[in-house]
């Protein structure tokens, strides 16, 4: 009987010493060592994707290196990731590619100098078009009054 009690106590002590996984507030069962690394990996992936979306694939037509399946794009994307890992900022990474390929490599040109045409012309044309349509509609809606006035003038007097 005593030995059985002793066995139960020892068993309970051993079980108490075995580390048990803790549940987080979200109910997830994540090892604390892996969690930050995964977060860092996902941040790295997200930064790489964002930057790769801004860079033009040199061997494609209007595709970013993120969207292009070409070998060169994949190599450029790997280089983007490598530069991020080495501690370079987003601006540094973009500046590197601009220094090699010129501003052409940026899918969205910088809003300065002649590039401003690309940013300003579409809204200007839109406004000009809207003004044109408004003037046209105004002239259309004005015409019937003129016609009715003249037809009224030409109409024989009522007796």
């Amino acid at each position, binding site marked *: 009987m005593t030995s059985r009690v002793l066995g139960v106590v020892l068993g309970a002590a051993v079980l108490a010493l075995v580390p048990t996984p803790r549940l987080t507030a979200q109910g997830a069962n994540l090892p604390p060592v892996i969690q930050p690394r995964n977060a860092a990996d996902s941040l790295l992936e997200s930064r790489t994707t964002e930057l790769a979306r801004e860079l033009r694939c*040199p061997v494609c037509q209007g595709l970013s290196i993120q969207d292009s399946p070409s*070998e060169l794009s994949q190599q*450029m994307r790997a280089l983007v990731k490598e530069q991020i890992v080495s501690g370079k900022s987003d601006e540094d990474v973009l500046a590197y590619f601009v220094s090699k390929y010129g501003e052409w490599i940026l899918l969205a040109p910088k809003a300065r100098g002649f590039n401003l045409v690309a940013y300003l012309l579409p809204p200007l044309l839109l406004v000009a078009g809207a003004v044109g349509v408004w003037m046209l509609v105004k002239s259309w809606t004005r015409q019937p009054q003129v016609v009715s006035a003249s037809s009224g003038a030409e109409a024989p007097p009522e007796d």
Partner: protein
Amino acid sequence: MNWRRAAWASLAAAPVVTLLAWGMTRDPNEIHSPLPGREAPAFALRVFAPGEPPLARTVGDTLTLGRMRGKIVVLNFWASWCLECRVEHRDLSTVARQMTDKPVQFIGVLYNDVASAGLDWIQGMSGQAYPGVLDPGARTAIDYGLYGVPETFVIDGKGRVAYKHTGAIPAELLTLKIDSLLAAGSAASAPTGPVVP
């Protein structure tokens, strides 16, 4: 009538038409390189094709730009799958052989290709006068802003990119570029500075 209105419409359309007309004069496939005039990106590339004497290099050796300071370097990017590379290959080897007594170093960089395919291609093209090197991950190609093959860079003795040519380079043009650099004393007067790996 509407002469006034027509004049206004023409005036409004003129800038757009001018812009479109200017755009038609430009080749969208041609990418302006910012490299000419700037310091050439350093490289350290392993030889996979030795070339022919007296320009031969040992397979496995590493060629670095820093060790070529004082020489004019012709860096030609090519691949075995590139049709246009066949056009220029004989010209490149011919010019390289003509320049053996001058401070000029020719290097063929295999772009996105495997060494065995490159060696087969060289053999099929009756050899190559100058050494061929590998560019793993196309790092040197990206460093030189490459967007296709063949592309050729002529680097002066001071380590600056003097000229970039896209497409097959004719022998006459390449000779002219090298001769003009030699005449300007680019190779001879260049300081033999510290070796940069």
